[in-house]
């Protein structure tokens, strides 16, 4: 399946991603932020599809948009944020933070512009039809230890979350 109108979709999806990113960090209401983030995640899944990574796109939708973000929304509903909305949204050192971030961005841009020769267009032959299979083989082959550690990490996270959120320990 050849992607159609690649250029258009790239700008469209990355535009959505960036705009929703801006919305995430500027909205007063945390729910709106979360919704913007979900939109961004979905647009990003589209970008993954354009990069011949359908499995990652699927995982992104299931895990991120369907799982993690629901967790976020769940928590936002549990903790009543009405008071937080009326307060000052940005902290006192916001200017410093902003400057630091912009400086970092400038750094990255410089690297990209100066070093654009580093990123020569080397296209690996994407085998889309067996993408999932190859990822599976890699996960259980090359990266088996990492995979196991990730599962351990999740276990720790589950226990940690339960302990943390429990009312009376």
């Amino acid at each position, binding site marked *: 399946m050849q992607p159609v109108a690649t250029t258009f979709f790239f700008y469209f999806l990355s535009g959505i991603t960036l705009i929703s990113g801006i919305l995430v960090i500027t909205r007063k209401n945390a729910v709106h932020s979360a919704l913007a983030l979900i939109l961004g995640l979905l647009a990003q899944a589209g*970008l993954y599809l354009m*990069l011949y*990574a359908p499995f990652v796109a699927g995982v992104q939708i299931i895990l991120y948009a369907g799982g993690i973000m629901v967790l976020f929304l769940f928590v936002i509903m549990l903790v009543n944020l009405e*008071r937080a909305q009326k307060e000052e949204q940005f902290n006192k050192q916001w200017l*410093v933070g902003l400057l630091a971030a912009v400086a*970092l961005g400038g750094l990255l841009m410089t690297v990209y512009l100066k070093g654009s020769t580093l990123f020569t267009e080397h296209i690996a032959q994407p085998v889309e039809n067996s993408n999932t299979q190859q990822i599976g083989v890699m996960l259980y082959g090359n990266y088996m230890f990492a995979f196991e550690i990730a599962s351990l990490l999740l276990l720790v996270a589950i226990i940690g979350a339960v302990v943390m959120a429990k009312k009376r320990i």
Partner: protein
Amino acid sequence: MAPITTLHYLVVAAALFILGVIGVLTRRNVVIVLMSIELILNAVNLNLVAFSRMWGLHGQVFAIFVITDAAAEAAVGLGILIAFFRNKETVNVDEVDLLKW
């Protein structure tokens, strides 16, 4: 228009990363700080997947690990947030300047 190269994706990812950093550094609301961290992780993911188009599938595998990581981070982070809110009735990061209460 010029064809879309990897560099395009990298620029988008960098912009997303910067947005995340700004969110983490400037917002007071913990929930939004956590979401900004998600933004950062996503920017990384986008980078990884973009590179995987150049150098094979390793990047995608790593993206999956990052997503796993994000799930763990979100679970623990939100757990801390709930415990925090229960005790302090606030979700502002700059009010958590005590190590105990």
